């Protein structure tokens, strides 16, 4: 845990590492550097979270989310079969979805589930956990 007083000094060293990583990006293969750079870029964001309990909760929350994304990626075809194929209406429109039997609203539902899951978890955390703390 970094002390608040030493954060300005640490930030200076962090900048040096970031710039070095960026310069190295011209030498090391792109894909490795991209991942490294994004991880390094995100380090200052840890300053956003100053409550230990929130850090633990957020770690579990986003870990679950990553697992959900991987699960949906692996079971994409099976999930697609749960949705009905589109109906050809009276305008007789034949587009990609009708021709290939791709469910019309499948993408919208999955997108909203993936985006809103971590948010719902935070809301539930606030409603359930915090109320429990109040009562105890």
């Amino acid at each position: 845990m970094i002390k608040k007083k030493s954060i300005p000094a640490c930030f200076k060293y962090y900048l040096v590492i970031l710039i070095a990583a960026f310069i190295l990006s011209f030498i090391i293969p792109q894909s490795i550097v991209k991942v490294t750079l994004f991880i390094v870029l995100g380090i200052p964001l840890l300053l956003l979270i100053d409550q230990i309990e929130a850090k633990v909760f957020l770690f579990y929350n986003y870990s679950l989310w990553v697992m959900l994304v991987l699960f949906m990626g692996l079971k994409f075809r099976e999930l697609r079969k749960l949705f009905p194929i589109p109906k050809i209406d009276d305008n007789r429109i034949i587009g990609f979805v009708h021709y290939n039997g791709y469910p019309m609203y499948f993408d919208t539902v999955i997108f909203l589930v993936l985006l809103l899951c971590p948010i719902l978890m935070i809301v539930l955390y606030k409603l359930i956990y915090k109320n429990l703390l109040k009562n105890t």
Partner: protein
Amino acid sequence: MKIVNILKKNVEYACVSIFIYSYLYIKIAYYCRLFTSIDFDSQALFMWDYIASKGYFPYRDVYYPYGTLYFFKNTNTFFNLLFIFVLSALFLSIFVYLKKLWRNFYFTYGTFISFLVFVDVFTGYDTFGRYGVLMSFILVYTSIFFQKNYVSSKIIFLIGLLNGFVFSLLYDQALYSVVFFVLILLIDYFLANRRAILNKNNVCNLGRKIIVFWCGISIGTLPFLIFLYLSNSLHQFVLNITTVQDLTIYAKTPFFPYSTTPDNLFTYAVLLVGLFYITHKIFLKPSFYSNNFYTILYLILALLFLEQKNIIRSISGQLTFISFFVLILLGHEFYKLLIKYKISSIYIGIYYLVVFIILANVTGLEKNSSNFIKRNNSLTCVEENRNFLTSKYKQLTEVKNFINVIKKTNENVYSYPGNPVFYIVFDSPFPYYFSTYEASPQYAQEKRIDFLKKSKYVVVDLSTLAIQDNVPEYTRSSKELKFLINSFHLLKKIKNFLIFERNKTDIDFFTDSSRFLSPELNRYLLKINLMAIPRSEGIYKSQKMKEEKARFNFNSEITMNEYLRSNRVNSHDLLMYLHVKKMSKKNQNTSLLIASNGIQTQVSFVTNQNDQNYILNFSDIPLFFKDRYIDNVTINPEGLYDISFYNRNQWQQNHIW
């Protein structure tokens, strides 16, 4: 004197406005967009410029899904300058917002220039001019609503008036802006009256604001509506808006398989971080919400709203500038935190600069790839592009030269399924929908057929017989293709173009010797794949269909073919209903080999489980565009089937594909 005083107070804004306008003027007014290929999108954009240069009007003379500003900006000097003015106003609104946000010279100009560079390199001014309108309106709304305790009716009226004016130029963006204004009104009402939402006075106040807003819009839109009415365009304009949902149906393509592009990943990352920040602020750390918080909230909502468009059909590259701006605003929130930790502004500035350079160089965001050439004083942009394309694609000139020898002056040429560049090459009349893609709905196909009926020659591009998304034309534009095959015969083949001439007598395409000019077209028409269409029809229309009595019923392929051999069964208005009891294996393609008078056609479709129904309409199979007797039907692979034939009644004619 008053203007001088106002200018003195706002010298900085005036200088920035002049700089932005001059910069954009040099970038836009002196250059023509060059269309370097004849792909679908380039041809559509070029065709609209050509139509505008000829003095035609959008909505009335040609299908046009955007606003009048974009229709005329490349061919009309006034609209070109107006476009530059609109862009300048958008950039100025962003500058004003950033200046009030940062209150620091270096961060204000640093973030503004980075935004300008981002739009210049990645987004392009055409895209920014559209979606930037919504973004700018949101900045204006949040500045007005969350910096003042009370928003007067006068201001709400002026906002409505401005929306009405923008509707005349960019009606789609104005509609989005109206939706967001009403949303902000409602949220502002809720926040101000949390304890008395249903109080009569408060509800009346809200109602009054909405009415004042609509009054402003009505007055702002009135001149445009009057102009549309006087130019006989109002009816078609209203029809275009009311049928926009048809566009979402035929344009929809899968999202997730193609969603891992750098542009999409960038937008998701910003959405996730933004949503986390908003939820964190509201639920975990409730405190005073700044103007910036609300701006981030509404821009995130705007991004979510526009992502629904992206989910329908990819516009990922057009949304990244909004994501980038949200990142700047989130960067400001982070900046406040870093300042609290006593980190120097210089180091924060260096950090943001490195972040921007990494974003621009490492993330792989798609760069704006439009080509521009300096305007020629003697030639218009349309003429420059026509000369360029005809010299690059020599086959266009070959087709033109061949047809010009045989064609009379008043005879029209028609291009199928798209390639509107031929109307430019021939300088000839064009249909309202100039490709089968926009004309996917039945009513639009009929409009194209009306134009086709007046045409003597048709140019068919063999390479685009699935004009978009690999959907073949015998499914997308079956009605139009049927009319073409029945009314025209093949005359000549030039490279990948087939030239058809109108029949003088009744000619059967599949027995006429001219079809041998193009074995590819023959194969295309005789070997068709209907994919999921028969299954979709079977799922949704079987029950209604079974209310009618079947003409014939067979419990096997053998009994069906015995009947067909001994009886003359005509394909006229005939539907085939196939119930698959048992397939030899799951997830297969089933194909029917249908023979008629020595010609055979193969019709394939997807069958993926037992006990399912499939409906086929014979009159939509190319071989049966003309009525014929069915001699034999072979089903591959073997399995257990119940087969019925129905005569198409009125309901089926209207509802079954």
